């Protein structure tokens, strides 16, 4: 496995280098800049120019890029133009919130996705398959923010069982923090689970007809053993890839869920950074998002190889 990971390093570095150029240029293509954001809408040209010079934004783009890239390589993520604080500090302040949300949402996504997929893919119960299909269809059709708002209404307004606004970090108070985390994580997980469920169900139904399943059945394997030991294990490969891809989507979905539930995670940070044209913050967050996607893909390949002996990482 180490050999496999080592072989991946050059391509990862290439991806990150290309991303750095895109991350640098993309925010600068939009009108406005951090100086404008700090000056405000009623500022004069003179005021904006003075702030721009103080921020060093009057240097050439090439010089700005090199300054930033050099710092990035040395581990210095730069200073936020708007907040005048280290970008690393701003990200670390918010990271716990997003990590908590992403992890619990992943658990919901995996448990619900695989659970619904097995329910629909097991050949035994037609009723279960109909229920699974209906639930999947409903969840696919309803966007995450609608799910979030419905959860707020049910659990926060009608029944008042769980808080619907704000957050308490798990490290500060696990019990209270978990209650704040439940609904947003469930909203996010529910939005992503049906894709996995549908994929798993389809793969399992296809696998049911394979020769090795017939052989196992002929040898007297119980329906439960057939489903879990033979069909499910063989069918999980595609779902694991889907889970890996959706892990990256979690962070995109987190932006909307964080806004609805008034959580202050990285999703809200990047929205604020884009709105205020806080270039360095946007650049680093884009790089981080790409890095997370790359790492989750690598992990997916490793898990896949572990589950399916036909797959060798070195291949």
């Amino acid at each position, binding site marked *: 496995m180490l050999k496999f990971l080592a072989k991946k390093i050059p391509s990862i570095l290439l991806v990150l280098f290309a991303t750095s150029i895109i991350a640098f240029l993309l925010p600068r293509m*939009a*009108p*406005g*800049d951090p100086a*404008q*954001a*700090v*000056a*405000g*809408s*009623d*500022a*004069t*040209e*003179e*005021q*904006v*120019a*003075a*702030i721009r010079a*103080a921020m060093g934004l009057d240097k050439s783009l090439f010089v700005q890029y090199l300054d930033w890239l050099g710092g990035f390589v040395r581990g210095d993520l730069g200073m*936020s133009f*708007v*907040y*005048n*604080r280290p970008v690393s500090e*701003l990200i670390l*302040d*918010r990271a716990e919130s997003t990590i908590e949300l992403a992890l619990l949402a992943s658990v919901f996504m995996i448990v619900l996705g695989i659970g619904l997929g097995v329910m629909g893919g097991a050949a035994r119960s037609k009723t279960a398959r109909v229920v699974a299909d209906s639930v999947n269809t409903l969840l696919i059709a309803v966007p995450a923010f609608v799910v979030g*708002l419905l959860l*707020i209404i049910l659990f*926060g*307004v009608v029944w*008042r*069982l*769980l*808080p*619907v*606004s*704000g957050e*308490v970090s798990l490290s500060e108070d696990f*019990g*209270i923090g978990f*209650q*704040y985390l439940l609904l947003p994580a469930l909203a996010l997980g529910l939005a992503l689970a049906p894709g996995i469920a549908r994929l798993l169900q389809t793969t399992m139904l296809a696998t049911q007809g394979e020769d090795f399943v017939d052989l196992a059945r002929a040898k007297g394997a119980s329906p439960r053993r057939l489903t879990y030991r033979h069909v499910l294990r063989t069918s999980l490969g595609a779902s694991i890839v889907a889970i890996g891809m959706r892990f990256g989507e979690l962070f995109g979905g987190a932006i909307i869920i964080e*806004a*609805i*539930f*008034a959580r*202050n995670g990285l999703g*809200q*940070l990047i*929205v*604020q950074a884009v*709105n*205020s*044209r806080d270039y360095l913050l946007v650049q680093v967050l884009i790089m981080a998002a790409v890095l997370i996607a790359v790492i989750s893909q690598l992990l997916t390949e490793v898990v896949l190889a572990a589950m399916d002996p036909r797959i060798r990482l070195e291949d």
Partner: protein
Amino acid sequence: MAMTRGAKALSLIAALGVATATLSGCQSAVQLEDKKSEAPAEIVAGGTLHLAQAGDLAPMSVMAERAANGSWASSVLETLTMYDADMTPQPVLATDWTLSDDGLTMQLTLREGVKFHNGREMTADDVKFSIELSADPANAAQVGFIARTFTSITVDSPTQLTIEFGAPTPNVFDLFEQTPIVPEEAWKGFADGSSIIGTGPFAFDSWSPGAEAHLSRYDDYWGEPALLDDIEIAVITDSTAMLNAVRSGRADVALQMQPVDVTSLQADSSYKVINTSASAYPMGVSVEVAPFDKKEARQAIQYAVDRERIAEQVLGNDASRVTDLFWEPTVPGYPADLENYYSYDPEKAKDLLEQAGAVGAEVEITTLGLPANTAVAEIVRNNLEEVGLKPTLNVQEPQAWDANQVKGELGAMFLPLHGLGGVQPVTLLDRLPSLREGNPSHFWTDEYVELRTDLITATEDEYADALHALTEYVLDEAFTGVLVQSISQVVTTADVNGISFTSRGYVLAGDASISE
């Protein structure tokens, strides 16, 4: 050995039992929030006020009088004077002021015994430093242009200073109203919000950018100490989330709430709605672009717009004022007879368009991409279609809009939004992009300059006439004109008392308390 079915069932029941016991032993977060919103039966000292606001704080822009700082700046930082309801300056950090007969020299006497939050006593050097900060373009102070007209500021003693003006400066109290007094040694801490030092009844403890801030009572305050222990400010960008925060008891006070959400709470006796400061929704045109190079066409569109409909459908009648003027009714010399200079008259609009040869003209309306602005733009577009123009909308997101407004390039027709900030018309002439030199209408005639100068140099007796003349000219030329003024509304729970606001809508929490 494989578990029997019975053992499996028992294990499941045991696991559920443990989970239930654990959860029942946990404290409920909802109950905690409910306890926060339950209040004792009478006003009591102490407690924490929870504020929610839609935009992030901007301590680095404290001189720029941003709305984002409205939740905390006037409770932490103080100014030399503050306007009362009649726009008469009242002493705060300055206790006395004397203006020379020629209006070119002012002597200020400062309050003694005022301490900054770092323990040092405030002196005239701090006042001089703060005014110079306002004058520095890098701090983007909206009243900084007033300070730039000073020829000198001399510190005569720790509590006395003399300001020399280059010309009579009738709006100097606008500068005093909106310039917080800060200590020089602590100014660097404002840049990243790590150390905000003022003289107010609350000290600024901490700020997590984009998330929250915390203030605590300053016990060495020169005046009556605040009743509250703390103020917590939460940044909640989503309007639905802010409404949920108020309804769930997480927030006691909500700033910058959407008008439709304010309306939904207004009928509920558990909440109070307080009107604060005004903003203007003007409609401007470029006099360099046809058909608006002709005055008849400019006047036509002013007659074409149904202002009452905008007030009712977009802002709510309680949160708006139908007026053609940039001035608030409280300003001295307010020309009330000009308030509705342009009544809604589509037939007159059509006649004027015919006179201008502008019937069927294609007009692009550039609008700021905020919800209320786009709603106003839709009504304006509909009204202009009715009188025979062919309008299209160009909605610009705020950053793009700001960049174009600074350059004075908003196209043929545009719908900005200006905070009026509780200042004098003389200040608004140079502060508002729609009225100042380099405005996006590209309107700058000798007569306009003359009337502006007349207002700036008018004596007390001449002021009302000068304001009337200038106002009438601006309305007649119609290069810009207000459609409606909106009044910012703050929602508080019914148990919040004593909260007040400055003329620019900043929260004053010194007398605030929580009761039932």
